Each structure stands twice: as C-alpha cells, then as structure tokens.
C-alpha cells in the first residue's frame, strides 16, 4: 500500500528537484523512476479539438499540456517559470522580450525558433475562428529580433499577460503543420507540438493516444511513460468505479460526496488539489429586485457560506471571500467571507423597502451539486423571510440566459486563471454589449482599480489593488461568491511522480508506473 508520504516523496524524486513546500532530503528514499507502461486516464468528456488556437473547452487543455508547450509555465505556487522561453525581460511596460531556448524541434522535425513563435501569435490574432483573440488582444505586434529572440509589443501595459501565456495562448504549434494541414489539425495533431509526448491517434468517442517523445529537449526527469491513453467517461460514478476496479489509472475529479469513501480505499490515492476556480451567483443589477443594493446585501447576509461548504461541498472547497482563490498570491486572508447575520438581513430588507421579505427566481444548472446547493440556499433564505424560486436549466440555456441578461440571480462557475486578473477583470469592468459581466455592474472606482491592476508590475502593489477590489465587490455584490472548490484527483497505487499544479492540468512528464 502506498502511503500519502511515499507518494509525495516519489514526486520529489522523479522531478529531479526539491518540490516547494516539502522537506528537502526526502528524495533519496523514493524509488527510481521506471520507463515504460501505458497510463490510462479517464476524463468526463472528450476533447473537442487538438488545435489550441481554436479550443474553447477545458478538457482540451489537459491533453495540450502534454503534447504542446507554452513559452512560460507555472510552478506549484503559481509562479511563472521558463517554458519554451528560457528567460524574459521587460525593457518598458509595453514591451516583452523573450529569449527562446535553442535546439528544440517540433515533433515533425522542424525547428522551434522566433519565426515559429511569431507565426503562432499572428495566427492567434488573425485566424477567423481563433478563440485566443481576446486573450492576446493587448498584443500589438510581435517582432523577430534574432533566431532565438522575439519582441512582443503591447498596446497597453498588461501585468496579467505573462500568466495567460502559460496556457493555450502561449502554446507553440509547428508552422509547417498549420500550413500543410490546418483543417485536419483539429482531429490529428501529429507532429504539431514540442512536448514530452506526441500525438498518435484519436478515435472519437473511444480514446485518444499519445506516446513518449524520444527526442524531448529537456533531459532532466521524464518522460518515462511509454504511452498515455485518454478515455471519456461521462458518468462520475462509473469513472470512479473504473479507477477502483483497476480499469483506469487516473481520474481528473472525484465528486465531493465520494471523497470520504475513496480516501479509505487502499487501492486508490486521492490528492486534494485546490483549484483556481470560483463558483458564484451573478445578480442582475439592471432589473428588480437586485437593482437595489440593499436587497442584494440582504440575500448575501442571509446565506450561510460555511453551512454550504460543509453540508453541500463536504469541505471539499473553501468559503469564498471574493473571486480570488486561496491558491493565488493575491488572496487576502484578512478579508473574511460574508458571514450570515439575520439581524443585518432585517436591516437591509427595511432599507431596501421590503421589510416583509421579497421573492425572486434563481436560475441554475441542472446538475446534482448545483441543485443541492440551490436547495440549501433556498432553505437558508426562507428562514430569513426571503422567498427564492429555483429554475433549473441545461448548460446551453444557462449561458444563453446569462449572456442575454435574462435572469435575476444566476449560477456562474468559472474554472479560474493563474493570474488574478483572469478571475476578475472581464467580470466586473464596465462593458457594453455581450460579455461575462452578466450583472451589468458599472462602478467607476472599480473600473479604475481594474485598469491599474494591469498597468502596475509589482506583485505586492497589485495585491493591494486586488484587496481594494475585493472589498468593493463585497459591498456592491455583482456576484455572491460561494466557494473555491478543491479538485480531488485520484490515482491508482501504481502511479508515481505526479506533481499537482493548482491550475488543475494533469501533466504527465515526470509520472511513471510502478
């Protein structure tokens, strides 16, 4: 039986470096990584496309982080460390210079260099179906300085850009593959990436296969695995039982209700990975009743976050004080989550002109956890004299209603981004037209702070700005924040060397099978 300590030790040993937060020196006790084997992974849905520039789905990223590589990447504390770029500098706030690693080849044999990097950025900005456009909107032009250096000129200072480049927006695809078969790239990524694994085949509805890249540039650590095989298993219970029965080796998520039971299973190792996500409810500021701030606050004070996190989420998550999760450097633990206070509810109700309570409808997603949470909130509000009706809709309708601002209170679950800006800016900045600012909040002071947070470079100062933002958010309540979920990942005993990064992406470079 593998104890938790053994597992974590093996992580330290495999990656060849001391994992931050662990005592150094425990690496020696771990077994040496073995080469070979097929890792069988179960995710809840299939990837949608193998083209990172056209990808809009979270599951796609899981595969990308093994076959493609971004310019920069994340460490376990969400710090930015070198990826395909070995270093970077900012001569002025509107310029980023990347020095690229030399000698790296794409899986199809072509060179990765500055030309390739520029090609990728240009494609992100100009390809009509590119979903990365918004993410690289602040990039004006990219220049090739020499074969291993690119200069990125920004339209405005943007402190969050570097973090954005740790994901799809920074991933490099082989220009040759794009030029020769761009249309096919979505289904067949052979030769397209530089990562520790390369694409082999994708049989839709069945499996996606990647294999070890024998000529991977990074000689430290892995890849050890021969192959990784992804299978879509939409049903959570089935997925978990496949793991427990040994049919697969890794799953990306264990439902809160199963976590306690699975932790007692000797065949399985569960890793609690705090995520970047924030789950909340948006309140529509443009129509009654939530156009009245006091009534928004009444609802916020009537909700018992602790009870929800304990009773619904079974403590597989943290009560939220705002959009920024505890995993982030910008998290301010000095700001507590809004605490339930029935006296304050009464006061706010009176202030809002509804001393006898009021009625509204909450729109939420038709999945068990969301339904349960809604029912609990409904009961909590009932105690406070507020009547909430629940309207269940499917995911498409939810998005459509949100975009059309056709709701009073609506569920909003954001998977989160490494930079706090990714959890904040587009949701609270005044934006005419369709956007994720579903609440319609337009607060000049908030706007100014949000813009400042992008211009300022120093982390300490940005953190102060985000604290200000959080305080305003708790007052104005465009959203009522509920929880920052933990994403428990589960592995069979044979899996060694996994390093958990809070963005929830499962990178298998240094993983090996016993």
């Amino acid at each position, binding site marked *: 039986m593998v104890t938790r300590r053994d597992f974590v030790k093996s992580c330290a040993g495999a990656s060849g470096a001391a994992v931050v937060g662990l005592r150094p020196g425990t690496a020696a006790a771990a077994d040496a990584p073995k080469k070979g084997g097929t890792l069988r992974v179960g995710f809840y849905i299939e990837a949608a496309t193998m083209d990172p520039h056209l990808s809009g789905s979270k599951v796609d990223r899981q595969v990308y982080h093994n076959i493609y590589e971004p310019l920069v990447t994340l460490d376990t504390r969400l710090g930015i460390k070198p990826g395909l770029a070995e270093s970077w500098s900012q001569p002025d706030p509107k310029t980023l210079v990347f020095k690229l690693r030399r000698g790296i080849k794409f899986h199809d044999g072509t060179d990765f260099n500055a030309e390739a990097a520029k090609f990728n950025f240009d494609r992100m900005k100009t390809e009509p179906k590119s979903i990365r456009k918004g993410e690289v909107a602040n990039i004006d032009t990219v220049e090739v300085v020499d074969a291993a250096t690119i200069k990125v000129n920004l339209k405005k200072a943007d402190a969050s850009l570097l973090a954005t480049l740790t994901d799809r927006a920074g991933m490099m695809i082989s220009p040759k593959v794009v030029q020769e078969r761009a249309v096919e790239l979505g289904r067949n990524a052979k030769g397209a990436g530089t990562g520790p694994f390369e694409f082999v085949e994708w049989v839709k509805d069945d499996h996606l296969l990647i294999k070890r890249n024998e000529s991977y540039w990074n000689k430290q650590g892995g890849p050890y695995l021969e192959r990784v095989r992804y299978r879509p298993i939409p049903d959570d*219970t089935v997925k978990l039982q496949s793991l427990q029965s040994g049919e697969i080796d890794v799953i990306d998520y264990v439902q809160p209700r199963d976590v306690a039971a699975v932790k007692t299973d000797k065949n399985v190792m569960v890793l609690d990975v705090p995520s970047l996500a924030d789950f909340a409810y948006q309140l529509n500021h443009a129509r009654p009743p939530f156009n009245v701030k006091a009534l928004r606050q009444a609802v916020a004070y009537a909700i018992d976050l602790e009870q929800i996190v304990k009773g619904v989420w079974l403590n597989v998550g943290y009560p939220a004080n705002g959009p920024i999760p505890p995993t982030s450097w910008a998290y301010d633990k000095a700001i507590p989550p809004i605490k339930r206070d029935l006296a304050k509810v009464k006061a706010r109700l009176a202030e809002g002109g509804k001393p006898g309570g009021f009625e509204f409808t909450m729109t939420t997603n*038709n999945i068990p956890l969301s339904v349960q949470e809604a*029912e609990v909130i409904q009961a909590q509000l009932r105690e406070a004299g507020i009547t909430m009706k629940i309207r269940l*809709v499917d995911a498409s309708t939810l998005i459509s209603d949100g975009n059309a601002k056709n709701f009073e209170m609506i569920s909003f679950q954001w998977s989160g981004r490494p930079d706090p800006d990714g959890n904040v800016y587009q949701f609270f900045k005044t934006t005419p037209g369709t956007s994720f600012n579903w609440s319609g909040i337009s607060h000049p002071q908030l706007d100014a702070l949000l813009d400042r947070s992008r211009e300022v470079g120093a982390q300490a100062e940005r953190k102060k700005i985000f604290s200000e933002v959080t305080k305003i958010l708790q007052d104005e309540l465009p959203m009522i924040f509920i929880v920052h979920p933990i994403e428990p990942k589960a592995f069979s005993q044979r899996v060694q060397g996994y390093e958990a990064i809070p963005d929830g992406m499962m990178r298998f470079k240094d993983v090996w099978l016993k």
Partner: protein
Amino acid sequence: MATSTLGFAVSEPAVGDRRWDALRRAARARLAPLGAAVLLAAVVVALAAPVLAPYDPLAQDLGNALARPGRAHWLGTDNVGRDVLSRVIWGTRVSLVAGFVSVAIAAAAGGLLGMLAGYAGGRADGVVMRLMDAVLSFPPLVLALALGAVLGAGLTGVLLALGVVYTPTFARLMRGQVLSVKTRDYVEAARALGASGWWIAGRHVLPNAATPIVVQASLSVAFAILAEASLSFLGLGIQPPAASWGSMINAGRGYLQQAPWIVFGPGAALFVTVVGLNFVGDAIRDGLDPRLRG
C-alpha cells in the same frame, strides 16, 4: 397493442375460446381488487399528504444527511437530510397528477383530432393522420425532452410534453371508432332526417367511442406516470425542491453505494403504483368489453 406508423392496426390475436376466456377473466378478477386497492391507497396518500407525512418534505438537516432507515426516519434521509418517507408521500401527488392530467390532455386533444379526421375524411383526414404518424415516428423520450426544453422545465412543461406524445394513440382510436360508426344504419338514418354532424357526434359517436378511449386511458395512465418519472430522472420535469419519484431517484443515483434507500424508497412506490394501475386498467378492459383487445 402494437400499431405500425402507416395506420395499419396490428392487433394481438383474440384469446381462445369461451372456456379459456372466462377462466382468464376470473384470474384477472382476483387481481383487480388488489389493483383498485393500490390506486385508492395512492389517491388517499396523495390527498392526505400534509397529514400523513411525518416531516416537512422540504425541511433540511445537513447534519443528519444520508441517515440509515431507522425509528426516526423510516426510509432514512437524503443528501440534505430531508426525510425520504415524507418526500415519497408528497411525491405521490406529483405522479398521480402527471399521470392523469397528461392522459386527459392527450385523450381530449387526440379525441378531437380523431373525430375531425374520421368525420371530415379526405384531405383533413390525411393531414391529421400524417401529423400523428410524424409524432409517433419520434423516439418518444427525445420528443418529450425537446418539448420540455422549449416549454421550460417544470410540471406544466412535462404535462404538455407527455400530452403531445400520447395524443396520436387516442387520435387513432377515435378515428377508428368514428369510421366504424359513421357507416352504421342509424347514423345514415339520422343524417337523412337532417341531423347535424355535431348532434350525431354527440349522440352516437361519442358514447360508442367512450369505451375504448377509457380503456386506453386507464392503460396509459400507468405509462404516463413512468414517463414523468423518466423525464424527471433525466433532469427535466419537476423543479426542486419539490419531490417527484423520478427526480428523487435521479438525485439518489450518485449515492447508490452509500445510501441506496434514497433510490429504492421512491422506486418501490413507483413500481407498486404502476403495477396497481395496470391491474385496474386490465380489469377495466376485460370488464367493459373483452372483445376490444386491439
């Protein structure tokens, strides 16, 4: 009863000769009171729910979630600590309403359409029956799903969706009746005497058609209840926190290993009710007219 989409009624062969017939009916008759008892019990439970249910079906008790069946909670508690027995009791209302109302809608709509088709004949007949065939060619669950998505979730949407799904059966039945009655002597006579179509419809067609319609309706109610449960199981239908047996089973699905009572409590209620309704339906069919088996 099996029907092809092309209007060609394929009937089950009639049961053998008199001797077997009578014996069969006797066997059935013994079960009929049982079925009636179940149905009566269901109605009583539904009506008396506020009095019968030991707890408020909406009362949550997060600290006592997933409790095993025991003295305090005869069927245990669900994932937010609500008493399963109380929710099953209240769920009876939803199921009975879903069953009876949707079939009523279907019988009314189908009956009207069938009468129109049968009477008017020709063009109208063709159009109506093609429409009915179209509805029948749809996989019923998908049709109900799509309709539910359009009509919005909630009991009303489910009732309408199920009503639409069952309409063709009744339309076909009514049309058949109208066609057979239309050519009867007394109808010809009435028409010769100048009676209006409506009068004939009311006086002759309806009473004769009533029997098979009632028979079909009684059989359909059980299936309508199952259908509502299926829709709620898929997540449409009754909105939380109200309880429908189907939505309870769906919610309990993830807890099958830890707390199977959440699934099997409402499951048993559903099964027993449907069986009872089937007994009653069969008895009505055999009682009213054993000839009508197709």
